[in-house]
């Protein structure tokens, strides 16, 4: 059979397909099925609907191409938080571990930078708060208007980044994105549990 394989294209295809299917099952599908049931840490907070909407915008804008949410158990990753656990990603689809760190890791950014105003200014134009930043400005999530209306969240953008006769107001999308970033806090159960 094997010695005649080179004369039988059906057999080549069959062996290649079956062999690959078995390997795919063993290396991908079965382990994935097993670990997808990982539960969140007991007591971990559930993300608000607004923050979840922010997560959808985070996916839409491809933020995860430059920002990991994946802290490795390595000294150089310490500034970003504790090592990530499978439980941190429970019930998320897709999990946003990421493969490139052009910008800093965001697994714990809500704790590292807890100011909503900072996040809003930073989203409007990152260079307004970090001069060397190369992150895109997400100005389309903000409105530029002459006067703030009732209920507007006005973003105190430095004068160099907005003309003096306008106010910058955050749209609901900008707020949702900021709330999502603030919701990125690594959870640890209270000690002694």
């Amino acid at each position, binding site marked *: 059979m094997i010695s005649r394989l080179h004369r039988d294209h059906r057999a080549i295809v069959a062996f*290649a397909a079956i062999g690959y299917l078995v390997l795919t099952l063993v290396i991908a599908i079965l382990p994935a099925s097993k670990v997808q049931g990982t539960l969140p840490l007991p007591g971990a907070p559930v993300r608000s609907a607004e923050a979840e909407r922010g997560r959808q915008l985070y996916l839409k804008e491809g933020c995860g191409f430059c920002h990991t949410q994946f802290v490795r158990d390595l000294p150089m990753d310490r500034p970003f938080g504790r090592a990530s656990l499978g439980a941190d990603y429970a019930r998320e689809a897709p999990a946003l571990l990421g493969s490139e760190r052009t*910008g800093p890791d965001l697994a714990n950014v809500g704790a590292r930078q807890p100011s909503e105003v900072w996040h809003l200014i930073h989203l409007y134009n990152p260079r307004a708060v970090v001069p060397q930043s190369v992150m895109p400005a997400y100005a389309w999530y903000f409105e530029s208007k002459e006067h703030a209306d009732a209920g507007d969240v006005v973003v105190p953008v430095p004068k160099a980044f907005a003309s003096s006769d306008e106010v910058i107001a955050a749209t609901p999308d900008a707020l949702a994105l900021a709330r999502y970033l603030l919701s990125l806090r690594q959870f640890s159960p209270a000690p002694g549990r």
Partner: protein
Amino acid sequence: MSAVASPSQQLITRQRSSAAADAATARVAYQYLVWATVWLLVGTVAGLLPAIKLNWPDFLPTPWLSFGRIRPIHTNTVFWGWSTMALVGLAIYVASRTSRAPLWSPALARIALWLWNATVFGGVVTLSAGWSRGPQEYREWVWPLAALLGLGVVLNGYNIYRTVGTRQLPEVYISNWYILGAFCWLLILYVTAYLPIYESGVGNVVIQGYYMHTAVGMWFTILAVGVTYYALPRLLGRPIYSYALGVLGFWTNMLFYTVIGAHHFIFSPIPTWLQTIAILFSVGMMVPVWAGTGNFLLTLRGARHAVHQSYALPFLLVGILGYGLGSTQGTFEAFRTANIYLHFTNFTVGHSHATMYAFIAFIIWGAAYGLVPQFTGREPNPIIVGVHFWLALVGVVIYVVALSVAGVLQGMTWAAGRSFIASIVAAEPLWLWRTVGGLLMAGSHVAFAVNVWAMRPSVRLSEEISAIPIQSTRHA
């Protein structure tokens, strides 16, 4: 000599009757190459823009041209538009030639081509509109587009399978092992990547590692190696060094490549045994890589003069070296120590261009320049081919060196515990060099487009095709 037509006379009769069918095969293969080139140009623009934005982040600040939206447009367009269509166009021709049979159904191949064009176009539109499955590399497209792509894979795979089934020789030539295997494997891995039933939480990461890796290694690598197994001996006019090494490479590639995707997630919460197997088998990858590379280099041995005389062979030579060196680099990147300092950095992006460009794209170009004139009867201008070669080669070397250095600098600033922004400041001058390399590469793509036009089939293609002797020396 008897009254009954001799086998060679029968062959000539069949050749004449199938001249029109051969012309149809040639025409559809060329159409794949033309559309691949269109997507190459689109994908190049989509690559240059984000490269420029890393130095001038407020350049073209429109939502649909923002970095995070256009980056997946670049990767998906050059993967599925450029590399896939070009390799499948070449594979159609190779499968038909090595089977001594016309393509089973050129019409089916044309339908698949338009399915794929619609898919890639839809991908550009949807991703720029922000309709995305999120940053899951190479499977960002929404599922209806993935379904269209998959349908095209089934149609083309079946078409080539039937073509090989009508072969006039008892053996399945080694190129067709690779071509048929690639279609089988892409279908399985693509369906696996889009089925949503085991993708919650870390399950998604296991599948992402498997998919992002095997989509490259079980499709592009396999097709490119398969095409090389035909193009190289054909252009050199000598047989491949070893058929057995080709078979060894085929099976070991399946065994090793499939299980090493997890090396993209070393130190992650996916099961440790998966990570360790991935690292071990990444070393195993040296078997298929050097079985292929070695086989090609041994076939080339003593052919310095032929390489010098040909404008196609230098591309194949760079592609073969790109295969061996790029893949070896990949093995070293899989080690845990290398991962600590190089993972997450631009080093990885340099590596993916060393492989998808210095290997895959150069093989496509070498095969296209070597084979297309044989079925269209038109040669490109050798000077413009030379311009293409040197711009592409110098461009990709600048690109890969710049990003490798940038990656090492990023890793060093992180290891030194400096503020994160230091890694951006350190990489920025090299990003400018990356754009310089990218501009040279873009120039080479324009030269290639000019050459594709120059190689277009003449109106009298069918007559010319019938004048080309199809018989191999084996039958003579």
